[in-house]
């Protein structure tokens, strides 16, 4: 699928802040997440892909605002001090948030839209700096022809429109223009940090990754019983 013009990416989304209806805590920026008493919900970065997008969005937002690597890591450290629950997956985190816990949930924009379409009392904010979540599609090389045909269908205008209606940003430009998805002022991708191959080891290695070290240092400092 890498060969097609979309590099195998089927839909896009962005990391967003999901908040209670009306945004009572007025959370608009990444710095707002660090306000005293703000409770953040994000899944566990070692079991959830969604959590990894969240972490890279937070990190990247700092870098794009001109912070150094050390300052960006320090931001992550402070952010994790506000995290009150770390569910296993992004969908679990959404359930926890809609169940009443936390002031803000870091999640895919499409999860927020899904929640709203299901009638949950949430709003979402797209921060000025955030990461483009690219959702790929793949077929196995020895799969049946119907699989390849299905993927071809997924790139058709009709399918892309359905994605758009369900909260995903279509990649086919003509369809994307039919929707009014907000474009953040600073949108970056995982490529800016070397792609997932590099990031996975640098940030999410369970022993030596940056995030693993943050969790250890938080644990040691808060391990008072």
């Amino acid at each position, binding site marked *: 699928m890498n060969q097609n013009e979309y590099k195998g990416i089927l839909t896009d989304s962005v990391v967003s802040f999901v908040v209670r209806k009306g945004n009572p805590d007025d959370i608009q920026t990444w710095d707002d997440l660090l306000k005293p008493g703000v409770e953040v919900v994000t899944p*566990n970065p*070692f*079991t959830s892909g969604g959590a990894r997008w969240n972490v890279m969005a937070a990190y990247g937002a700092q870098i794009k605002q001109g912070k150094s690597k050390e300052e960006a890591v320090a931001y992550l450290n402070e952010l994790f001090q506000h*995290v*009150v*629950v*770390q*569910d*296993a997956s992004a969908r679990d985190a959404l359930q926890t948030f809609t*169940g*009443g*816990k936390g002031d803000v949930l870091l999640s895919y924009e499409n999860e927020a839209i899904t929640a709203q379409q299901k009638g949950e009392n949430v709003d979402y904010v797209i921060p000025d700096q955030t990461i483009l979540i690219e959702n790929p599609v793949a077929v196995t090389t020895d799969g049946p022809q119907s699989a390849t045909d299905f993927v071809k269908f997924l790139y058709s205008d009709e399918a892309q429109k359905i994605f758009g209606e369900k909260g995903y940003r279509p990649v086919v430009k003509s369809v994307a223009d039919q929707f009014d998805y907000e474009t953040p002022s600073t949108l970056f991708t995982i490529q800016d940090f070397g792609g997932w191959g590099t990031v996975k080891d640098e940030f999410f290695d*369970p*022993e030596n990754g940056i995030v693993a070290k943050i*969790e*250890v240092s*938080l*644990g*040691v400092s*808060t*391990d008072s019983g």
Partner: protein
Amino acid sequence: MIGYLSFIVLIPLAAVIWKSTGSGLEGFWNAVTSPAALASLKLTFGASVVVALVNAVMGTLIAWVLVRDDFPGKGLVNSLIDLPFALPTIVAGLTLLALYGPRGPIGINIAYTRMAIVAALLFVTLPFVVRSVQPVVHELDREMEEAAASLGAGGFTIFRRVILPNLVPAILSGVALAFARAVGEFGAVILISGNIPFKTQVASVQIFSNIESDRPTAAAALSVVLLVFSFLTLLAIDLVRRWGSKHES
């Protein structure tokens, strides 16, 4: 019989131990002494000890009341004691979250804290001490108590020196089971614990986490630690029980 035991218990246990050696002895040691693993083991055992002790007292009390007292609805309460056995643990977790979580109806919100973990464990271990002690209370020879009273012993002395020694083996047996069950509990805890490493992540959930992040060797290593400790606990309690029954006059 050996074949059945092997198939259901022994072979799977051996397989877990085998799997945990996948990265060699050093890998095993690293996996179980990593800061996160040690923290989760501390939390798991700590919470289980607390739960076992609470059960020792409350379980005995409940068993006593169920046998010796009479009150309307006693039959129903007696049946309810077994509810934690009948309920799927994930349902227990869901119920606790609905009752004592952020949208709970009674205004108590302890979800995602260590207290929530203890509450969940107390629920699932409720029947063990009660059911262990109940038959013993039932069989107690009242004449002993009456004799002690006629000799001038007060209520507390009768309890301490006549009744309690007879109950201790059953209490210990129930406590051991409650402890072992609490150490391994997963379903009731996973929804309500919050899963923050170093704060509210218990060993069983961390094992699951390891499997989900494609680290089966670390998961097996942690599992072996839990197995060994549970086994040692059961062994120790059994020895204490045998010592106790040898010294019975």
